[in-house]
């Protein structure tokens, strides 16, 4: 089997890609993709730690399951918001949506 650190490094690289996407992109859908990549990186981390450090318990697996279900809920609401904003403004550039800026 692989050393634990290899799994953690893959998870770290995915996290970095997610952070890059969230910081750089202006398209709302791309930012949603980046958030999903971040959540997946964290789930991979949980499961890797459970396998190597506490193989007799499944706490990491339950946590990952909760995280996956919550990510589904959040993606649904986020996409509904993007759809509603797009219908109103015909644009998904997040730097153009500044109606509430003080």
């Amino acid at each position: 089997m692989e050393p634990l650190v290899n799994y953690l490094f893959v998870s770290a690289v995915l996290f970095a890609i997610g952070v890059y996407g969230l910081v750089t992109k202006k398209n709302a859908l791309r930012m949603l993709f980046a958030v999903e990549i971040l959540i997946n990186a964290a789930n991979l981390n949980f499961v890797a730690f459970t396998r190597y450090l506490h193989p007799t318990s499944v706490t990491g697996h339950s946590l990952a399951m909760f995280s996956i279900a919550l990510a589904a809920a959040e993606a649904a609401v986020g996409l509904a918001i993007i759809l509603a904003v797009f219908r109103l403004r015909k644009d998904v550039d997040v730097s153009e949506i500044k109606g509430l800026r003080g």
Partner: protein
Amino acid sequence: MVDVTFLVLAAVTIVSAIVALEAKEVVYGALALALCFVGIAGFFALLDAVFLAMFQLTVYVGAIAVLILFTVMLVRREEWLKVKEGVHKAAGVLVAIVVALCFGYFVYASTMTHTTPSVEQAPFTLIGAQILSDYWLALIALALVLASAVIGAVVLAKLERD
């Protein structure tokens, strides 16, 4: 040394994550994101968490990727061309590389040098027992969150019929 399955899965996951963010067409990005989810499910299977791998495939690929693709296709295509890409792309790439290198250093220089786990992974039937006994409050909260998310999404995305 490192084995081939792990390397191939890592390459597929990371490359499809990058393609998901960088592809010109958002539909290709969404499909690459689905491939990334499949790669993560492969990682779960490699870590002896087959139940979780099937769960990830069913929820992420079967529901979330379909939802994302649906939304991407419901929006007219010509509008996408007007969104300019990020201006400070080089700075973003630099930040990402610095973050990855820092995490890599912390991880490789740490004391977590476990290679082969000594014990078998506990069976997946314990997950249900644990959720229903130790984390029952989280389960009920999750049910309420999912219900409110569904209602909220339906209300938000409804067409105004006057």
